[in-house]
């Protein structure tokens, strides 16, 4: 396992370096670059702007700038928001919990539902249930999340009035847990839609792979009840690739969260991203971009760690 972990760590480091390079490149693609905000300030001549640029070190060679930017990044200095001069990390940090709550809720729903549907589909292959599930999954993958969100709002908030149309809590409300959950349901479900489809398809195919293995035949030859064979033997093995899948789905979840937050006016990091983009508040935008990428890197590393723990073939070599 040590070898495995070390190689994964090294890979993650390489990826981190590449990610930072891409991020830096994107940052400098902005028209006017980091100086763009100054272009909007009246009263600053070109010479002034050039001088500010020189002070910010923008006329030094790119690799040097990259190195400085990266070092600042690593110590936590992510710049300051153009809008209110707050440190970018702090701003992100204030909005992060809301996004995390949404993502976790969606993941939980998606995993439980997706796995159940996947197992059922595999065990009752080609049945009506399985075919409906497959077609349903494909349609679910094709629906634009925000449209689904709008339709949900229309049906449940406008017509039926069962759920609130947005926000994290009722304005002026008591802030109770129930109220919070009431607001969480719709965006979490909408975000979970695509994930349920993905998980159920992968779980089904993983179960099918496992069910045809020889050790399942051995388990049956022991005379064990079918449920035990499926759960203790098949499921346990079919679950392993799902851990890797969780890591791979992280970027999609983050992107989906942005959309869900927009449709349901949920005050999370995604909303912040859009708002800042509208204001051309590049430090915050870049900050969120890098933060998401690093979150994905970390998530994948964790997933691999979990794999190593769960699979004795990796753990004990």
């Amino acid at each position: 396992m040590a070898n495995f972990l070390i190689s994964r760590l090294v890979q993650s480091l390489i990826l981190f370096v590449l990610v930072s390079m891409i991020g830096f490149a994107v940052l400098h693609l902005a028209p006017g670059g980091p100086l763009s905000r100054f272009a909007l300030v009246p009263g600053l001549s070109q010479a002034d702007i050039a001088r500010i640029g020189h002070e910010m070190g923008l006329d030094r060679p790119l690799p040097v700038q990259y190195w400085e930017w990266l070092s600042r990044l690593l110590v936590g200095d992510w710049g300051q928001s153009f809008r209110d001069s707050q440190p970018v990390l702090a701003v992100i940090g204030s909005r992060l919990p809301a996004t995390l709550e949404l993502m976790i809720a969606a993941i939980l729903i998606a995993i439980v539902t997706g796995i159940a549907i996947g197992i059922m589909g595999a065990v009752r292959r080609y049945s009506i249930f399985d075919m409906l599930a497959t077609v349903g999954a494909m349609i679910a993958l094709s629906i634009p999340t925000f449209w689904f969100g709008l339709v949900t709002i229309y049906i449940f908030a406008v017509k039926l009035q069962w759920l609130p149309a947005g926000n994290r809590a009722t304005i002026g409300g008591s802030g109770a847990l129930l109220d919070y959950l009431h607001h969480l349901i719709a965006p979490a479900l909408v975000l979970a839609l695509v994930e349920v489809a993905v998980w159920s398809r992968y779980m089904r195919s993983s179960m099918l792979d496992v069910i045809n293995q020889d050790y399942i035949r051995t388990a049956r030859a022991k005379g064990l009840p079918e449920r035990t064979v499926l759960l203790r033997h098949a499921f346990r093995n079919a679950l392993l690739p799902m851990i890797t899948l969780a890591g791979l789905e992280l970027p999609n979840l983050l992107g989906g969260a942005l959309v869900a937050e927009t449709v349901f006016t949920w005050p999370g990091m995604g909303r912040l991203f859009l708002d800042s983009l509208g204001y051309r508040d590049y430090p915050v935008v870049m900050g969120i971009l890098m933060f998401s990428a690093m979150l994905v890197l970390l998530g994948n590393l964790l997933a691999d760690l979990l794999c190593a723990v769960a699979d004795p073939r990796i753990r004990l070599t």
Partner: protein
Amino acid sequence: MSTTTTAMLSPGSPKAARPRNRALTRFRRHRLAVFGFSAIIVLVLATIVGPWFIPFDQLHIDLRYRFAPPPAGGHLFGTDQLGRDLLVRLLMAGRISLTIGFAAMLVSTAIGVLVGVTAGYYGKAIGIVLMRFVDAVLCFPSIFLLLVLAAFVHPNVLTLTLIIAATSWMEVARVVESQIRTLRERDFTKAAEMLGASGRYVMFNELLRNAVGPIIVAATLTVARAILMEAYVSFLGYGIQAPTASWENMLNNAQQYLGSAPWLAIFPGLMITLAVTSFNFVGDGLRDALDARFDLA
């Protein structure tokens, strides 16, 4: 056990399918792909020639008929806040959205094939670095990247196509690279090299010909993804701008009228879903058809 007995005895689940159901499923899956394909043809034709058959022009503003629910006043899908016929606008918008989808697919497939082939054939350092680069780009949520890039440029059909392509080529590159890597290990590539064929000949002719199948599947699914990505970007306001209509910015405008004129939001969304689903069905069907070649028994 012989291959016949193995084939007959699998899937090992006691609830294995009846023979009739198996054939039924194959036909049904086939039907889904056929449905998807026909839907695409219908959509493309409708968007190209449809508007000529509809008595209303997409820019024709008729304030008497504002917010007419379908099918009032001869407007099959209703009208919007300026009295413009929704169906016509949907079809015209379809031209934009489908064009972006196809174009983005072409560009991203080209990039993906180039990167994938280079990485797969040369292997070693170049291959590893390139594929790590692909992994790194995939660490960024596509929507985030798309939005940032879209904010930097003036969004029109061309720039949007390029941006969407810039965030969609990775999947194709991966597929191509892994195909080529496996094929490279196989004997016939070595045989071709031994016969004195030059490197580039080997690379493009032999390998590409065998990898064409998965590339087509990936390309089809890329169209679906591209249409969806354009949807997200435009919905969030960074895509096609008014007065040009695309399905997605129609949805954006419709958001505020959700309570009073829901059809303004429902129909564009349906069109997007229909288009994306069709491409996904076709892509899935193609993937199955290609896999079937390697099925034993």
